[in-house]
């Protein structure tokens, strides 16, 4: 008798999802599906609006990482205007983007995944949450809150508010950074750096006790995608698109992000609202013969986000993060890449360190308080693509406008969407490892959920296409 197990809802992620696990007659996992069950519709309802409004509108896609959308959207707007934004504006945008990465990664590590990592995957579900963490490890929980506060505070100092600031606009930013606010950022930095150092030590100490997880939680070869600086360094705001394979072979050394369509395709499935982006050149190899396999595009699976960014870059670019990156790379066999999604946690902490170091550097830049921060122009290009690295991965905004700047077509590939194939694969791998005809307990289901948490997905953000897809998969007995 086959059986379906449903985990609904998946908790401690941003957004709503459920997982179904199909068991065969022997109680072995036959297949798994990670369903994203919410629908937003941004691509459709933005049509007819002006591209000037898009940073404000698309920031509403998310309350955790509105800044990422502000960046990508404003950059797409810059492209439509055809302007180079003032250098100070670019530095300020970077500053906010780094702050955003710090706060979002802190949330993921301390609050969403921390309870699993510190209290145990199988601990009492009633206390396996941030409140339980506060009870048992008050210092860790407090540190998490403080670190997140640092990021949010920097965002607020720049943009006037920490969530949905209307500060990044096509052509630059709205307000410069004051001397006073620069000093505030400077004063807050040492504590944030200390907390990050402690968290890195804590995770590295704990790695030994997570050998099973390391081996089975999303440990498979895949491609990796991320932005890099022109010389190959770690990059979050601008730069070139690089794609490498699991062995570290570079498939796309540095593609201009506006050409992303040439290498990224999107597939849809009827059982989830989240699209499946894939790397075209690899996936198209599966499209041979008259009736290609329904999963033909799976060959183009790639991962994005902290793990991918650390895998695609040649170096980080700041002293402490580079030192950590060297240690991190020793997790993989010589000349290979870190293929275990479990190490997203580790990569996240290294990125926090990198962002803090970059913030520290940038606030000392004498030109950072210049007040020339906005370029003015009219519509000069009818298509604009803005690409940036959101905390969860590469984010694409593509706008097609008419000569008045009214949107005719919008395409958004949200960071989490890029990881859709990998998340499904991870769920299946964990389920196959833990469920083998034996009795199921809550701890096992939580482990499967943790597979999703590794990617820190933002599901509410990533479902935006329009269309009707029935969502009717429930607990079903084959008989």
């Amino acid at each position, binding site marked *: 008798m086959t059986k379906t197990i449903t985990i609904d809802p998946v908790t401690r992620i941003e957004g709503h999802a459920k997982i179904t696990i199909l068991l065969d007659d022997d109680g072995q996992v036959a297949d798994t599906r990670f369903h994203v069950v919410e629908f937003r519709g941004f691509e459709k309802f933005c049509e007819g609006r002006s591209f*000037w409004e898009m940073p404000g509108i698309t920031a509403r896609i998310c309350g955790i990482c509105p800044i990422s959308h502000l960046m990508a959207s404003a950059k797409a707007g810059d492209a439509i205007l055809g302007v180079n934004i003032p250098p100070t504006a670019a530095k300020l945008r970077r500053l906010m983007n780094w702050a955003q990465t710090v706060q979002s990664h802190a949330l993921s590590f301390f609050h969403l995944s921390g309870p699993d990592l510190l209290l145990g995957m199988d601990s009492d579900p009633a206390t396996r949450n941030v409140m339980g963490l506060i009870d048992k490890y008050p210092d860790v929980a407090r540190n998490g809150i403080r670190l997140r506060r640092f990021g949010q505070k920097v965002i607020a100092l720049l943009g006037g508010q920490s969530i949905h600031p209307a500060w990044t606009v096509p052509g630059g930013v709205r307000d410069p950074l004051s001397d006073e606010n620069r000093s505030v950022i400077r004063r807050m930095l040492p504590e944030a750096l200390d907390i990050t150092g402690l968290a890195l030590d804590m995770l590295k100490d704990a790695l030994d006790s997570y050998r099973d997880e390391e081996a089975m939680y999303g440990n498979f070869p895949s491609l990796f995608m991320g932005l890099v600086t022109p010389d190959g360094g770690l990059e979050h705001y601008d730069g070139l698109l690089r794609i490498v394979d699991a062995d570290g072979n570079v498939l796309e050394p540095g593609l201009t992000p506006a050409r992303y369509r040439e290498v990224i395709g999107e597939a849809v499935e009827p059982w989830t609202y989240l699209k499946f982006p894939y790397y075209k050149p690899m996936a198209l190899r599966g499209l041979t013969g008259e009736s290609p396999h329904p999963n033909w595009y799976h060959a183009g699976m790639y991962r994005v986000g902290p793990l991918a960014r650390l895998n695609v870059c040649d170096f980080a670019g700041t002293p402490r993060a580079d030192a950590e990156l060297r240690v991190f790379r020793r997790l993989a066999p010589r000349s290979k890449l870190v293929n275990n999604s479990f190490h997203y946690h580790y990569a996240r902490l290294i990125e926090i360190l990198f962002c803090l170091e970059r913030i520290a550097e940038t606030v000392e830049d004498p030109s950072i308080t210049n007040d020339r921060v906005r370029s003015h122009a009219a519509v000069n290009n009818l298509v604009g693509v803005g690409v940036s690295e959101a905390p969860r991965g590469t984010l694409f905004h593509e706008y097609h406008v008419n000569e008045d700047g009214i949107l005719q077509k919008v395409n958004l590939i949200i960071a989490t969407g890029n990881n859709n194939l990998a998340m499904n694969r991870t769920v299946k791998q964990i389920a196959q490892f833990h469920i083998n005809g034996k009795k199921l307990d809550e701890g096992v289901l939580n482990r499967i959920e943790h597979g999703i948490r590794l990617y820190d997905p933002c599901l509410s953000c990533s479902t935006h296409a329009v269309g009707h897809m029935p969502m009717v998969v429930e607990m079903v007995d084959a008989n």
Partner: protein
Amino acid sequence: MAVVTLTINDEMVSAQEGQSLLSVLREHGIEMPTLCHLDGLSERGGCRLCMVELEGNARLQAACVTPAAEGMMVHTHSERLVKYRMMILELLFSERNHVCAVCVMNGNCELQYEAAKIGMDHVRYDYLNPALPMDASHERYAVDHNRCILCSRCVRVCDEIEGAHVWDVMGRGANSRVITDLNQPWGTSLSCTSCGKCVQVCPTGALFTKGATVAEMEKQHDFLRWILDGREKKVWAHGNGK
């Protein structure tokens, strides 16, 4: 002009005969919500927010188009009036797509202000969600019909102050729309002088400066008083020597 005496909210006040009730109320410090009224423009009585109760008259009257008269007994904030004002505001919000969070006038909008002031915290009616376009063909300004409340301030200021009469209203009822010239893209209008008066008097984010982003628009009405005072004192007259 003769002076009349009337009672407003149980207090005796005097006013000039023929003076609009709205101006009498405001002279006496009574706050009245308005959206279509703007000092300096002709009255339209369209938004109905300034409605008052007159004793002996079963129908509510818009104070902006009702002249003060001897012996009038006026009530401005009865339960019934507040209920109707709330209803009017809710209907305005449900009629088009007012999304304050991403609007250029967020924080400076008169519609938003009136709704907040009266305590409107939700809309009881179904939103109509009409599919309305945005016209950004003008070089400097844009009109977003989603945010228009058909107050016709733009129509009146363009006709009465600028003298161009670019704007007008087309259609009927909830389907009405403000149009430029003969319902053509604003950017192709031959009569528009690009003076921007319509933008400055618009109470919402329907008319705005192109390129403005969320909460970035602030509108100035004081030019109206300045122009009209000058007109009264004939400082604009030809051959004035100034």
